[in-house]
């Protein structure tokens, strides 16, 4: 799945309080690539990810997926796109602590209306891939940070996405767990050809990516291989 941004701008606020987060960003991400979006806080890197992931819309410019302008998609089609084609990993995990690990991983399938039995099978398989099969019945709140992020990876994987968006995936983890999570992500990228788009300010992590997009003041400062 090719993701392409052409002169994308994004403006927040109104009149006197206008803040331009993206000032005409253009690039292309090929199927199966791993790309890091790097920049200081406020550089617009998170905004860029949100626009690419169809969580937010660009104010001008075009984001296209396999040549199709996603701003022309209906809200329902965008929902389905995020559900089926995209996987999300967040710094703060966003797991439901009261529910079991399995329930958390099944959430995207529940949203898509997958039958209960298939949901469970696929969630268990996803948990196997992040090596957490034995924790399926545990409450998510009782896991360690590293385990939680692995659950999030399983949740992102469960719909067999084409692209995984990871927003500071190692931000809340110690270096050992961080490495574990990074290895897992790159394994998936290589073994399954899932495109990785990682937003980070961690240079170490960024170096592991095939390409790096440096953001500065809402502009793309540099693209490095």
């Amino acid at each position: 799945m090719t993701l392409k941004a052409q002169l994308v701008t994004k403006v927040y606020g109104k009149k006197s309080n206008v803040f331009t987060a993206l000032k005409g960003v253009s690039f292309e991400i090929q199927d199966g690539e791993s790309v890091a979006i790097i920049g200081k806080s406020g550089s617009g890197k998170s905004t860029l990810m949100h626009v690419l992931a169809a969580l937010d819309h660009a104010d001008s410019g075009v984001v296209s997926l396999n040549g199709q302008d996603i701003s022309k998609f209906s809200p329902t089609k965008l929902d389905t796109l995020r559900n089926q084609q995209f996987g999300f990993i967040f710094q703060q995990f966003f797991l439901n602590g009261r529910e079991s690990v399995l329930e958390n991983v099944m959430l995207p399938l529940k949203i898509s209306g997958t039958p209960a039995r298939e949901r469970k099978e696929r969630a268990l398989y996803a948990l196997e891939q992040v090596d957490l099969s034995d924790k399926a019945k545990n409450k998510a709140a009782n896991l360690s940070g590293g385990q939680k992020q692995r659950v999030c990876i399983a949740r992102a994987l469960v719909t067999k996405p084409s692209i995984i968006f990871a927003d500071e995936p190692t931000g809340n983890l110690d270096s050992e767990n961080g490495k574990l999570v990074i290895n897992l992500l790159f394994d998936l990228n290589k073994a399954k050809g899932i495109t990785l788009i990682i937003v980070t300010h961690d240079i170490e992590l960024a170096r592991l990516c095939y390409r790096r997009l440096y953001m500065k003041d809402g502009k793309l400062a540099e693209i490095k291989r």
Partner: protein
Amino acid sequence: MKAFDIVRTANRNLLRSKLRTSLTISAIFIGAFTLTLTNALGDGAQDYLNRQLGNVSAPGVFYVVPKLNDNLFASNAEPKEYDPAKKEGNSFQTPSMTNDDLNILKKVEGVELVRPYRTVSTEYIRKGDQLNKLSLSAINPYTSLNLDLAAGRLLKTEDKNAVILPENYLKPLGFAKPADAVNASIYLGYRSAVGKIEEYKATVVGVMKKNLVTEGEFHVDDYMLQKIAQQQGGGRAADQFAAAIVTFKDTVPEKENEQKQRLGSAGSYSVLSLKEQVATINNVVSAITTGLSLVGLIALFAASFGIINTLLMSVYERTKEIGLMKALGMHRSSVFLLFAVEAMLVGFWGSIVAIAAAYGTSQFVNDWAATSFLKDFESFTLLIITPTNVLSVIGLIMAIAFLAGTLPAIKASRLNPIDALRSE
């Protein structure tokens, strides 16, 4: 998201903060409980009235009386010329129906039977083989009402000298149980036109249960009434009646209005169907129960704010979760439904618990009432909880809860996933 999953998820979310949910549910409970019981009271009274006042579904039977003309002595009106062909009555003087009127009514299209509704005054009643006399106020003519009987049968058109005895006369007359009185001979004492006491022999065909409306109501056939009336008032009095009872060949409810119109236009008559007579009393009962139901509705109205409040808090608490679900592709409509269903479930559980409690209460109250203030009215069940009552209470409350849930649900469905996820 599938409907089943929405309901299941909503129900699980309710259980998250059990105290808050149970408090909201108890507010609903109070309204639902009140509403169920007032409905049950209405149904109980309605059921009793229907049995006491006869078969409401006896269409095609009408009471016909001369039309009252109250303008005769209205402040500005001058006395009118006397017209022998026109019967004019007023509040002080009720005109009578005559045989001429009966003949007119008989000719109305579709009429099968016209019977006079006579009233006579009586003095006493005594059992055939005993001499002690019991006082007796009035006796009623045969109507098509389905009386609530303890024994025996109802009157028939062809009956001669048949009587239906009220239950409270059994013991004074020396009958051990209702069935003993059936086929027994009784004598009715009355004063003739010249003031002499006369007796009339009749046979008991049925015994009527006690009821709320009248104490000791006797029902006798028309043949007997006519005979007594002739003795009491001479030939002329016997030919004047309070009303005529008209029965149509077609006894379907749909034709009632048309039949009523036909009778009304046959002369200067006021026409009242049996159904309307019962309906008049039913209206009083419904007015009372509606008033009580209003209390329940006000409680529900207050409770609906509890639902709004609870769900709004829930939306704020779950902002991130909602944001995540939307980011993961949940449609706005599903988010809306999730909260709307949650509100409806509050209503559902509240009404279920309330109905169960109301059912228990009704059993207790009915048992108590049957042994205390309703002791004499054996066919009166004070509180009757019908399936219609149950379903309408659940339906109404779930609808109110849904409406209350729309505000929080819209709020949740409009959350922007990025803002929701970003909020710390």
